[in-house]
């Protein structure tokens, strides 16, 4: 990659008005300020943006956060390390398993806790199932935003139920699994459960084929999403964008490959990359990632070793890591989800910080929306894949 000129990029962002695009001037009117949200059917929760319009063109867009600010970080300081685990479920409530893993990984780094091999495999299986779940739902919601009222979302939720059934029979809860522990997982999946997961994995490709027949080649969807909300790789890197959003701009950066955490280096999978960085690319990346997830699932289910699911030396009660700090991160379905923990030797963390991927991905929302219409802003927001529980925490 060539050396991007970050300074010019930032100077432009920092000067008010410098980014206002050339606007169609057949409208000689005042600018119109529209407040979208926090109650708006297309904002995926209680997100709000204040959009300034010239005619129909967006010339300024300011997101407003905090309508779901539930004080995760403050609460994390008042409970023990393990007590924060159920709270992580409620961060990005579509993918609780990866949140659990990210938190467990950070604590394991902090405390120097080893994880048995079987648990690592189970974590990979659950993380990839979560990725399937999250991406399927996201595509459903994105299509809902495009105006395909109901149908794709209905299919997506049908598949979601199958995955949730697996989660429920393993952890006891559909959405809030609270499954990972420091040094392993809470329960050992049974042979029946694994057979169910295998069945789902074998079948999922067929569903994806069906889904793609419906959507990928659809002319209306192409017309609606191609060339909309373009993001340059330089800006994406500088703005800390991660996950499928970053890879849609063509930057090859997947933490499963880069950090090689867990047992991911043992699996053979590819990292799909986009080249336009528009909404269509972001959709395609997610579909292709789901296909890679199926590949990983097949390998992980085939190679699952026997053994303990929890490190026998792991401490659950009176868990007090040594004073120090650690930052652990994994590749969540939405991007890099990280936890920064600062311990002072007491049972509660001194500081518990969540690095929320979709919050930081929203940094570039204005850049992507400028010059487009309001209807495009809706699908651009949809393609960022936000979950408000994580954006506002």
């Amino acid at each position, binding site marked *: 990659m060539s050396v991007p000129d970050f300074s010019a990029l930032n100077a432009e962002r920092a000067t008010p008005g410098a980014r206002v695009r050339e606007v169609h001037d057949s409208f000689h009117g005042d600018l119109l300020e529209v407040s979208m949200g926090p109650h708006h059917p297309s904002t995926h929760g209680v997100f709000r943006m204040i959009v300034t319009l010239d005619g129909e063109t967006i010339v300024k867009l300011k997101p407003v956060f905090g309508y*779901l600010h539930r004080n995760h970080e403050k609460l994390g300081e008042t409970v023990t390390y393990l007590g924060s685990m159920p709270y992580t479920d409620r961060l990005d409530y579509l993918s609780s398993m990866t949140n659990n893993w990210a938190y467990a990984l950070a604590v394991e780094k902090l405390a120097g806790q080893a994880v048995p091999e079987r648990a690592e495999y189970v974590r990979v299986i659950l993380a990839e199932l979560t990725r399937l779940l999250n991406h399927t739902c996201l595509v459903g919601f994105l299509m809902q935003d495009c105006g395909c009222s109901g149908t794709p979302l209905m299919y997506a939720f049908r598949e979601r139920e199958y995955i949730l059934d697996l989660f429920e029979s393993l952890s006891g809860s559909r959405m809030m699994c609270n499954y990972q522990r420091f040094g392993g997982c809470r329960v050992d999946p049974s042979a029946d459960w694994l057979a169910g997961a295998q069945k789902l994995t074998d079948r999922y490709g067929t569903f994806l084929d069906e889904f793609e027949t419906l959507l990928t080649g659809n002319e209306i969807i192409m017309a609606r999403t191609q060339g909309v909300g373009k993001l340059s790789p330089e800006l994406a890197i500088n703005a800390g964008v991660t996950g499928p959003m970053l890879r849609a701009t063509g930057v090859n950066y997947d933490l499963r490959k880069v950090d090689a955490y867990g047992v991911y280096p043992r699996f053979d999978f590819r990292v799909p990359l986009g080249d336009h960085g528009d909404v269509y690319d972001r959709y395609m990346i997610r579909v292709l990632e789901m296909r890679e997830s199926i590949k990983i699932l097949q390998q992980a289910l085939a190679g699952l070793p026997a053994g303990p699911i929890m490190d026998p030396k792991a401490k659950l009660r009176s868990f007090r890591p040594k004073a120090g700090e650690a930052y652990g991160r994994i590749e969540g379905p939405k991007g890099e989800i990280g936890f920064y923990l600062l311990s002072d030797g007491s049972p509660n963390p001194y500081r518990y910080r969540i690095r929320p991927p979709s919050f930081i991905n929203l940094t570039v929302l204005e850049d992507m929306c400028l010059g487009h219409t309001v209807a495009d802003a809706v699908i651009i927001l949809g393609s960022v894949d936000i979950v*408000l529980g994580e954006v506002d925490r």
Partner: protein
Amino acid sequence: MFKRDPEDGTLSQDVTPPPPSVTETERDELRRQGILLTTLQELYTWGNSHSVWPLNFGLACCAIEMIAASMAKFDIARFGSEVFRPSPRQADLLIVSGTVTKKMAPQVIRLWNQMPEPKYCIAMGACAISGGPFKQGYNVLKGIDRFIPVDIYIPGCPPRPEALLHGLVQLQKKIQGFKLTGPDAPRHFRDDQPCNCPVPEFGEHDLEPPANPAVWTAPPAIVRKD
């Protein structure tokens, strides 16, 4: 049967209905023979209870389960509530599905005020009932019933879609028990009960006021057992 008062627009029934001369068993017997006997009140509440349109309004994690309840597997359409309206003007039911933060509370109350009567409110999930797992948070409202009247509480974190459906059926039962007239009539048939709730302001440390005294009083102190 009904007369609208030209002065204040209230409905009143000008004929007191005679005491029922047909017993339930006789009515059932007649219904099997193909004769349907009913009262206006029953007809009205029957129609009302089976066409409760919810507001398309999600707050947090519980909203995902609310969406799941409206999708293929759980199919809320079986109970006549599949029409999720995006506009509060067209909705009958506010499902408070998730954590209400103090920053969001004025907006939720404003939505409630914009809904036309008859309107109902379901508090879905631990958060909407009491703040749930986030109760100790500085920005979390400890239950939406501090500001607006709640008809049905559904516990759970999140409640399963079946629980939401059960709550909906309970709401339907409640509606079917409504009287159209008299002192037991629900809020929307009476003048003396306001249908709007005051919207709190953002204060320097908290919402002002922190609760609506018309709908909420602090529960009696829990006695501590040391």
